[in-house]
């Protein structure tokens, strides 16, 4: 292991890690350009490299892109990658009130910490942890998605009913197109454009970014509050926030690692679960959804932890943990490298050199991220509206087109954006809609598969309610849904008794 540590520290590997992180951050910051795409673009370049260099470069660009998603989330209320959805919830309110620089620095610290936790899990516990990926069957994914949908209760600011309605709308939108499992064509109204369904990234850009743009044009205020004095990185302040929230940080990183290991989930689910966990355990005085630094810490640490977590099933089992891992797996195959348990024994030097390289890339993200973040923040804050609006509008269109090289995605993005803006005027938020859109297919697939297997084995009840992990998720869902009500009741009763 020490030998591979030294191998990872060669100048070539460090330069690749540095370049990868910087490029990844820039790509991730642009809505529409995702981590998967960043890695895919790189693949031909890696053919000529030795496998460990190739892996380090791809790992670095991947982790950088997941972090870069926070930039647009904080500064434009638009997740740069789906992983950063939960970052918008508190990051943008912070930026609105003039704390954008602080939010950027906190996001960087949290991402680095989360990334290190994920990489440590990969370094020390990969073979045992890979079993987690296998313990989740269709029933578990179904209940996990139901648990995810219950987060709507935590995410709806104001009206729970409006949150639920938004979630239902998201579920409906997720049904459009060819169904993944049954291959039925649904809700396309005869249009060829809708056959491929509504792309989640296009929907994210539309629902989050278009309303911001419309509001920018329709109100005279500045986009973000401008800072009055030079405050630098506010590193000390950010560090104090992160230190105060160290429990949130560790818990979120662990959630991210576990969710990353699950092949059916990903950074977006990790961020949302970690966020709502942080919110559930909020201390008095914390106001989530209104610019609470702990919200940014939870989301950003968990999504970067999915990187290391996702590599666990990828390298140990040959099963990609996340979409970018699928691309990396393909690149490995072209390199002639077989994944699987034997990889850790036969090709141990390559694997451990890569894991250390990923670790260093994550650490390098600190200086790179602080500098790039500062630059991004300054340019967005200083940019006059007359330039900012067309620049962002242009970026959303290019970004949406780039997802699938398809113009119809752009049309869908704009239509959803207008719908999102109108709904927003009536108090319906974007996040429950997106939650429904992301979790709908996971819930549907899990349900149909579990049902089919349950019927074949003549044990439908046992399939859904007789498996320990499923039961655990069900109980946890009920607990997180009803605990606030029960605690409230109990408090009222004890207050009455005291009287």
């Amino acid at each position, binding site marked *: 292991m020490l030998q591979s540590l030294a191998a990872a520290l060669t100048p070539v590997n460090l330069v690749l890690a540095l370049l990868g992180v910087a490029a990844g951050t820039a790509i991730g910051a642009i809505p529409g350009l995702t981590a998967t795409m960043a890695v895919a673009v790189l693949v031909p370049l890696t053919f000529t490299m030795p496998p460990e260099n190739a892996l380090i470069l791809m790992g670095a660009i991947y982790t950088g892109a997941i972090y870069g998603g926070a930039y647009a989330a904080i500064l434009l209320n638009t997740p740069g990658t789906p992983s950063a959805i939960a970052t918008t919830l508190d990051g943008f309110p912070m930026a609105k009130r003039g704390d954008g620089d602080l939010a950027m620095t906190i996001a960087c610290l949290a991402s680095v910490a989360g990334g290190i936790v994920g990489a440590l899990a990969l370094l020390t516990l990969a073979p045992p942890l890979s079993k987690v990926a296998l313990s989740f069957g269709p029933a578990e994914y179904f209940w996990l998605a139901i648990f995810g949908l219950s987060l709507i209760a935590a995410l709806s600011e104001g009206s729970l009913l409006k949150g639920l309605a938004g979630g239902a709308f998201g579920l409906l939108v997720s049904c459009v197109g060819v169904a993944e499992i049954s291959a039925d064509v649904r809700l396309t109204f005869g249009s060829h454009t809708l056959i491929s369904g509504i792309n989640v990234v296009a929907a994210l850009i539309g629902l989050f970014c278009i309303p911001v743009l419309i509001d920018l044009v329709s109100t005279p205020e500045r986009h973000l509050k401008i800072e009055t004095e030079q405050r630098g990185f506010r590193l000390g302040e950010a560090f104090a926030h992160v230190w105060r929230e160290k429990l949130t940080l560790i818990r979120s990183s662990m959630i991210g690692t576990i969710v990353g290991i699950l092949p059916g989930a990903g950074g977006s689910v990790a961020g949302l679960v970690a966020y709502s966990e942080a919110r559930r355990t909020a201390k008095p005085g914390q106001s989530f959804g209104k610019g609470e630094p702990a919200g940014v810490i939870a989301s950003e640490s968990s999504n970067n932890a999915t990187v290391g977590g996702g590599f666990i099933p990828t390298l140990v089992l040959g099963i990609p943990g996340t979409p970018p891992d699928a691309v990396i797996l393909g690149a490995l195959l072209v390199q002639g490298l077989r*994944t699987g348990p034997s990889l850790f024994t036969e090709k141990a030097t390559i694997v451990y050199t890569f894991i250390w390289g990923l670790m260093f890339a994550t650490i390098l993200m600190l200086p790179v991220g602080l500098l790039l973040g500062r630059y991004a923040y300054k340019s967005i804050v200083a940019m006059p509206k007359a330039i900012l609006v067309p620049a962002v509008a242009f970026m959303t269109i290019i970004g949406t087109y780039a997802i699938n090289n398809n113009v119809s995605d752009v049309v869908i993005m704009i239509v959803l954006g207008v719908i999102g803006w109108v709904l927003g005027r009536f108090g319906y938020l974007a996040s429950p809609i997106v939650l429904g859109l992301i979790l709908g297919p996971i819930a549907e697939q899990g349900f149909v598969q579990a049902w089919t297997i349950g019927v074949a084995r003549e044990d439908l009840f046992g399939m859904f309610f007789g498996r320990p992990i499923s039961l655990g998720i069900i109980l946890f869902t009920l607990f997180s849904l009803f605990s606030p009500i029960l605690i409230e009741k109990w408090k009222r009763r004890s207050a009455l008794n005291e009287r």
Partner: protein
Amino acid sequence: MNFIRRTMFTAAVTLAASAAAVAADYPGKALDYIIPFGPGGESDITARLQQPFFKEKFGQDLVVSYKPGGGGAVGWAELNRLTGDGYTIMGVNLPHIVLQPAQKDVGYKTDELAVAYWFHYTPDAIVVSADSPFKTLADLTKFAKDNPGKLVFSGSGKGSANHLAQVRFDKLAGIKSTYVAFKGTGASNTALLGGQVNAAWGYTTSGTALGDKARVLAVAMEKRHPKFPDVPTFKELGIDLVSGAYRGIAVPKSTPDEIRNKLSEMIGKINADAEFQKKMIDGGFAMVDVPADKNADFLKAKSQEFIEAAKEGGILK
């Protein structure tokens, strides 16, 4: 009249001459190779394997890009609207391009796609986890006969090569099993290793990807796969099943025949390269060679096979 005839003749000659000239210079620049799926799948991986050989043999780059959507349908519906100069080519897959237009209006028809070459396939295979009680195919069919419907297979997608293989195998072996569609081979393999299902209808590539965690019981090939010399074919076991997911390259319909044939020849040359073959076979793929002029017969035979199985399985009405 004479004049018209003469002009037409000259026009035809010039056209033929220029086409031949174009074909002679082909390829003069990089080719845009569109994969109608997302990155990381088999179509992407095999395109990536072709890339370096193309560059080495013909001096031009193959630039891979993706246009995913609708299980490939979005790309194929657009293919014939692209410029037919031989510099835009697209991956095509079977049984997709047969079943999709048969099921619904997806914006293209099977025989409208101008295929230049079918270059490999991933043979269907029955895979079990290493700790499975099924040691041979006979163990598996015996269990299915004793417990009708209770043998649960995972597989990649509905109406896919895996699904059609399950339908045909059930019929040929005289059993009744349950097929559960998963989103892609990765998810299907996860369900297999996690013990959610009894076995998987996968491809030979799943066998190589899962290594010693899984055991391949039989492969749907004419001859044994070089990578799995100990695994019998279905044919050896008395079941006439040769099937899989075939992948090829198509060009827009407007592409001149000379260029399409030249491309077909080029892909054939890559396929004949020993090093390329080794890389493909190590990955679990199996080679086929169907050049442009054999495409029509090949497609006809395959269509018949796939459509029959799809009707049998209730995928087509």
